[in-house]
């Protein structure tokens, strides 16, 4: 069997399963089994794809084998295969969590049966965005995942969620319109949208036009990735959704934006890194994000702000425009997807056990040692305490920045270290207040993990276990990231796509 046929599977399999689960709308148990097993299978296939891409270089499939390169091309190079692998692991674990109560959010008669089909469509959209070999297919991938996310962020359509969702939908629609505008300019100027052909033709354009296209696309992807000054929508809209939805959004959706920025900066405009501009954006994203987090009294919002802040680290790696910076950014994306998802999932458990996510209402959760451990490990990891992967990722990025030796990179390093410390303060405040302060409420609430389905605890432990295992796997993973970064700068992408053309 030709391995290239494996490339579209992460897109097709969840879409197919979405149809099946929609048919099973009246049987939630069966829905859950179908989507969990599909996503597990998806993760296994993604692992195969990832290993194959590592061994044989970029795997390319021209869908439908249309002549003269008129068809759609899907490409799994090392970077996109790794992203597909991590996202499929995350989705396979998170799909266990949603419960009727979470999704409906106490609204009567809320349509909970749409969760699983929509979640699977979201997975397909994310995979499509990672595998897309041209700008327009990337746009389609974005739209698939956005539409699924519109539905998920407003599940149950309660007042709070409609308000939060409105902001999210309007911002996303604007960014989609801008993306379409950018694509029309690119096509008008070059006559192609393929990632393989664009670099050559873009380089032949007038420099002013090149910069216009690059900045327009940066704005589009910057909105998706929540980069300063385009980040304001995120902390407003994420926290009200069900915990499992927020977890996946926080883990995956912003990283799709970062991934698109990497593609843009390395494949489309390798000669124009815009280092200074992106470094300033990265520094401001890091600092403003984390200062916002310190002001919050609600855990989900606090974590949403740390999410914005840590996007800055990835942008820092991309901004450097060096292979080391890029490798650091890739490692950091993997680390951050897993850690942020784990934290949001654990906060979902805290909400169920403690009855709230507001710091002034929580307390005494240390009476539940397993929950405390599940929170503390990823929290320290996010703060960058050795030996966790957050530390390794930050060191890689800081190393990369110091290598370039420019003064602005030095400022970025300082900002990065400060952000890391402030993150630690933010997450430890949660630790101190939610877990150790006396419980303020007079109501007797028995704190115990028993209120949770056992499989949740197992799945959350597995997720936290994976974040810890990144420490052990850091060696192979950094090597892989370095190879992926080398691939990107080496032009392997271009060569593979041309060779595979029917």
């Amino acid at each position, binding site marked *: 069997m030709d391995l290239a046929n494996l490339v579209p599977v992460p897109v097709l399999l969840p879409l197919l399963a979405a149809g099946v689960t929609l048919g099973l709308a009246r049987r939630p148990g069966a829905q859950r089994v179908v989507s969990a097993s599909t996503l597990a299978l998806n993760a296994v296939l993604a692992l195969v794809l990832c290993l194959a891409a590592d061994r044989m270089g970029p795997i390319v499939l021209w869908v439908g084998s249309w002549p003269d390169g*008129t068809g759609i091309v899907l490409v799994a190079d090392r970077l996109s295969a790794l992203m597909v692998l991590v996202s499929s692991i995350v989705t396979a674990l998170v799909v266990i969590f949603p419960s009727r109560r979470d999704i409906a*959010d*106490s609204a009567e008669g809320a349509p909970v049966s749409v969760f699983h089909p929509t979640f699977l469509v979201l997975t397909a959209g994310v995979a499509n965005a990672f595998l897309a070999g041209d700008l*327009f297919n990337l746009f*389609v991938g974005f*739209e698939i995942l956005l*539409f699924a996310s*519109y539905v998920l962020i*407003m599940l149950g*359509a*309660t*007042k*709070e969620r*409609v*308000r*939060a969702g*409105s*902001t999210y*939908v*309007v911002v996303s*629609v*604007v960014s*989609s*319109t801008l993306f*379409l*505008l950018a*694509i*029309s*300019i690119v*096509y*008008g100027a070059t006559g192609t*949208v393929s990632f393989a052909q664009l670099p050559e033709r873009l380089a032949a354009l007038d420099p002013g036009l090149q910069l216009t296209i690059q900045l327009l696309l940066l704005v589009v992807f910057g909105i998706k990735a929540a980069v300063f000054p385009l980040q304001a929508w995120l902390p*407003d809209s994420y*926290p*009200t959704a069900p915990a499992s939805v927020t977890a996946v959004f926080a883990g995956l959706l912003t990283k799709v934006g970062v991934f698109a920025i990497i593609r843009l900066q390395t494949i489309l405009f390798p000669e124009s890194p815009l280092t200074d501009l992106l470094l300033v954006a990265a520094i401001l994203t890091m600092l403003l994000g984390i200062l916002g987090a*310190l*002001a*919050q*009294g*609600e855990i989900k*919002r*606090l974590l949403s702000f740390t999410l914005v802040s840590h996007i800055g680290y990835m942008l820092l790696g991309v901004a450097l425009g060096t292979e080391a910076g890029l490798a650091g950014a890739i490692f950091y994306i993997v680390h951050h997807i897993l850690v942020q998802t784990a934290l949001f999932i654990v906060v979902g458990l805290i909400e169920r056990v403690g009855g*709230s*996510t*507001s*710091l*002034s*209402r929580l*307390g005494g959760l240390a009476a539940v040692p397993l929950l405390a451990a599940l929170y503390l490990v990823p929290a320290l990891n996010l703060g960058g305490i050795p030996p966790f992967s957050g530390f390794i990722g930050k060191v890689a990025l800081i190393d990369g920045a110091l290598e370039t030796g420019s003064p602005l990179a030095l400022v970025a390093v300082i900002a990065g270290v400060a952000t890391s410390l402030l993150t630690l303060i*933010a997450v430890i*405040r*949660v630790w*101190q*207040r939610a877990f150790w*302060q*006396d419980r*303020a*409420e*007079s*109501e007797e609430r028995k704190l115990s993990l028993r209120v949770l389905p056992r499989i949740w605890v197992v799945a959350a432990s597995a997720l936290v276990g994976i974040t810890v295992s990144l420490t052990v796997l850091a060696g192979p993973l950094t090597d892989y990231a370095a190879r992926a970064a080398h691939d990107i700068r080496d032009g392997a992408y271009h060569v593979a796509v041309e060779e595979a053309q029917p």
Partner: protein
Amino acid sequence: MTPSLVLAIAGGALIAAGVYMLLERSLMRILLGVMLAGNGVNLLFLVAAGPAGLAPIIGEPRDEIADPLPQAMVLTAIVIALATSAFLLAMSYRSFQLEGHDEVADDVEDSIVRRRAQADLSSEAHVEPTSGGDDDTESGGRLVLDEEGDDEPEPTETAQGEEPGEAEVARRPEVREPGERLGERPGDGQGDR
């Protein structure tokens, strides 16, 4: 290739009108803005497609047919725009159902943080080192603020940390946290602007 100036100007005008509408708070106007801007962008695709030609069907002479690719893209974009409009309409109707209007409201938690800053209070995540077990009186200040619903600093807040009695009153169990989802409670002060 000479692009059609009329199409470009029409596209630009539509996008400008769309952006103007997008800046409104009402979801219906935003929807109109999205549709106008989207159609403007679709016109720009037609500009990018170059001169008109024969229908792009196999068998026609190759250099006389129109470029089929932008047409395919515009078709995709139109389908997506249709779905977007349907979703925005549903969202706007739901918003109207819940609140009696379809304007996008401000974030609740955001305004709480802002009011605390104006009242010169510490962040809610902050723990007063001196106040020991009663450090959570800050939530008393927060509740008072929210119930009053104005931007003036409350005199009681200056006494926080010293008056546990006040805090006890403020955190009676039936007083609900504003940060919790109050979605179903009528008149919780956020939507009725």
